[in-house]
């Protein structure tokens, strides 16, 4: 909960934080949570694993790991 006059600023700040994350990862995380809730836990964990493995093929994930190890901010391109 935030004061009314801060509402837009706080929502924008949250949106900007999410926008700075890997865009494909954010989409897949959203898919894992929303689809997984309608599945049994076993099926849902399999979905999470499959999405994780697909993410391993993205340029962004390689950049995320490289940036972390180089101690710099990552530059994601949604690929």
């Amino acid at each position, binding site marked *: 909960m935030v004061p009314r006059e801060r509402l837009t600023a706080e929502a924008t700040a949250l949106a900007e934080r999410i926008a700075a994350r890997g865009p494909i990862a954010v989409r897949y995380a959203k898919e894992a949570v929303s689809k997984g809730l309608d599945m049994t836990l076993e099926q849902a*964990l399999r979905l*999470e694993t499959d999405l994780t493995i697909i993410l391993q093929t993205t340029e962004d994930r390689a950049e995320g790991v490289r940036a972390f190890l180089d101690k710099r901010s990552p530059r994601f391109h949604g690929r």
Partner: protein
Amino acid sequence: MNSEALVYEKDDGVAWVTLNRPDVLNALNMEMRDELWQALHALEDDPDVAVAIFRGAGERAFSAGADISEFGTAPSVVEARRARRERDLWGYMLAIEKPLIAAVHGFVLGAGIELSMCCDLRIAADDARLGLPEVSLAYIPSAGGTQLLPRTVSPGLAMGLILSGDAIDAQEALRIGLVQRVVPRRRLYAEAEALARRLMTRGPLALRHAKKAVTEGLDLPLAEGLALEARLARLVLASQDAREGIKAQREGRAPQFAGV
């Protein structure tokens, strides 16, 4: 099985599993996963172990997550998927019938918080910081975080934590129900052990079946979940332990449960 990465100890019915790479904030590497796999089998198979407590060595972290220096070392993504399916570490941990307690402090991030959510109960030190930062490195939680967090706290709060990657402190974790208790750092292991010992005074068969009813019931429609509960309750009521529980109460003494 003790080595540098994980320490497994038994103390009068309680198994202590200590993540032991404090120099790297107990980051989970392959070696630690191998030893965790062995420790989980040991504590589940050992009749002398009633409850297990998971903790992290050192002052700074329960675990800061997966060891990122090992990321991308599998020969191919096909190979990575095969390895995960052949040895389902987190699936095995979630299927353990004995009660598991996580005693967390410092950084509890990524695979660290996920490991704690594979436990049944979580006690946090007041210095704990918990979160799933994966999306900030362009990947997603992959030790069950996207599924266990929405089943532990409200789905809306879980979605917020997973999409933002933001960490929360121990008091916030308590407020949203991610941890059951927050205690001063120096009291963490004493409180975890006291909780373990309290569980050990309950009927072990009842504990196992109660855990099964809750975890399996969550995957079932209500009517089927209630039928599962009724079936497990009948099994427990027919046990020697249930008779001993009633007898001990009538005689005004502490029960002696045999787990059958």
